[in-house]
């Protein structure tokens, strides 16, 4: 899995490369927008991590240019510009995700995983399956081992997100953004409470738990080994 990091700050790019390298990714680095664009076009990457404030150019423009060339490599923006409107601009310019500096490395790693293993054609799926847990998206029904589990609409969306990223680590912030569309830090353990309620419903009466807490990172829904 190859990742291109477009970041002008030597130290920041170094930490990123080191951290991602230790997690098993191959990392190339570009220090300017034009270099990054040239590398993205000539090489094939699974993911591009782009800073926004590059020397003399906004990383948005680099990604816009890339998208114009028809390149749809997933892009993760990293930026100190953290306001909601900036985030929206990033996604409009063709970014797939947006992470505000400073970030927890676990957060970055979780998002990188999700972006790289983005399944294609997910939109057509009508049934999600993880082990014996099934979600029928059309009938809005969830069953485990054939038994129906009644869920509140929001719980349904929470489980859907977890199931779509089964086997991956999903952070609290990711859940907050994708399930609730909130972009602030609730300061309390609200997400944990929601997840533990969901866990009550899908794991409680079964021997093998599917929904796991990943310390210091978030949650992961995965089939038992």
């Amino acid at each position, binding site marked *: 899995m190859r990742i291109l990091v477009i970041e002008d700050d030597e130290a920041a790019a170094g930490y990123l490369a080191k951290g991602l390298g230790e997690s098993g990714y191959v990392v190339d680095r570009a220090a300017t927008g034009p270099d990054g664009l040239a590398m993205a076009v000539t090489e094939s990457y699974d993911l591009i991590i782009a800073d926004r404030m590059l020397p003399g150019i906004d990383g948005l423009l680099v990604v816009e240019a890339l998208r114009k060339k028809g390149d749809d490599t997933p892009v993760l923006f990293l930026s100190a510009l953290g306001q909601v409107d900036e985030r929206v601009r990033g996604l409009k310019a063709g970014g797939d995700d947006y992470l505000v500096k400073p970030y927890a490395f676990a957060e970055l790693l979780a998002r990188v995983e999700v972006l790289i293993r983005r399944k294609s054609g997910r939109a057509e799926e009508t049934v999600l399956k993880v082990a014996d847990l099934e979600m029928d998206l059309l009938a809005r029904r969830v069953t485990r081992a054939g038994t129906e589990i009644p869920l509140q609409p929001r719980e349904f969306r929470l489980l859907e997100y977890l199931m779509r990223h089964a086997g991956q680590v999903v952070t609290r912030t990711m859940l907050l953004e994708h399930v609730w569309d*909130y972009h602030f830090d609730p300061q309390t353990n609200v997400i944990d409470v929601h997840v533990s309620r969901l866990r009550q419903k899908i794991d409680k009466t079964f021997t093998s738990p599917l929904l796991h807490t990943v310390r210091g990172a978030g949650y992961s829904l995965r089939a038992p080994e």
Partner: protein
Amino acid sequence: MRPNRLLASSTFRYALVYVAMFGVSVVGILAFVYWEAVGVVSGQTDETIRNEIASLAEHYQERGLGQLISVIAERSGNRFGQRGIYLLADPEYRPLAGNIDAWPTVARGEPGWVDFLIGTEAGPRPTRQLARAHTFVLPGGFRMLVGRDTTERTELRSLITEALLGALALTTFLAIAGGVVMSRNLLRRIDTINRGSQAILAGDFRRRMPLKGNDDEFDQLAANLNRMLERIEQLMAGMHNVANDIAHDLRSPISRLRSRLEVTLLSPQDAATYRTALEETIRETEDILATFNAILDIALAESGALRNEFDDFDLAALIADVAEFYAPVAEEKGSTVTVDAPTPLAIRGNRHLLSQALANLIDNAVKYGGGRGPIELTLRREGTAAVVAVGDRGPGIPEDLRDKALRRFVRLEASRHTPGSGLGLALVAAVAQLHDAELRLEDNEPGLRVVLRLPVTSAAPVRKTKVVRPPVVKKTG
């Protein structure tokens, strides 16, 4: 005011334009009167001459030349008020009777109307006068000239000319004087505003433009300038606050962080201790960042920069969403969150910041009122306001501390032992300000009720989205 300033002022230039327009109108009107009057007088003169000729011709036809001569002699007697000119001459133009002593040269030849100069005895001042006459030939070759001098016409003309010039002078004088007075007054007010602006530019930021109180355009201009100054002052204060906040609230945790690291390094430790120290450090930095973000959010809300990021949405749905988000946390504490927002209510604002503000309020309610009864959210429409209230049954805030509670980093004594940066309510206050909303802390008897009055948009109705609401617990009693 210096004269050259006066001349350079646009008001004065307008005044001059008025003067010119007035002048042209007055001249036009008087010229019309003049031509009409002169025309009437000329017409009358010609008419009189024709009548005389007709009667003289009658005399001649009926009684012959002798009678005509005597009539002419009689009529030529310079009686007062008569301006008649008569001359009867033989075919060689030698005068036979009449009151001018020679046949005018211009009048020789073809008979008809003729204008010529004569020395006249008539009128107060004998001068050479223009006369108008008709000549004709009597049967037998005698020539006859009947006319009138035009003293009347001349007098009338000079009378009208004088009137015209007088009126023009008066108009010009009045217009100029009016222009000067008007432009002086206007310029004086503009000068006041200019002087005020210069003083403010020179650093007197507290200064404001004086208002006359008559709400004219100048007052409105001054009021707008004052509002602009208020806004600028607010923004400057905001920047100042951010700087202060950062100094106040970030300095100590950063020093703590540094001390922790230094202490860890003082003596050799085992790996586990280092690990613990590092984990502590990361936690510490997360707190610092949370505070930092809160400061930035507040600054952004206060600056009003997000006003162009407003859109229309249903406040009832937003409240239901945030309530649903916090409900499980409240339940863990042994409370319920009830929502009473019966009808959709469209408002215009920043959805994210309002969600965040509401989240802070519910979070506080859970923190302080959790386990002491329900947390009640209500939404009511009152005239042009949407009134959101978040009430809890906690200890509340004493009246004299309520203002203080809205300030930044204020941790009231009662909340010292609860986690939080002390920025929660400050953000709510900033978001309220961004939305021109009124924020009040009230007594919920017991507990705290936070009331937010937002202006409602009369905008297009919000698209009905299916809102999932938590079960509403009916209030009893």
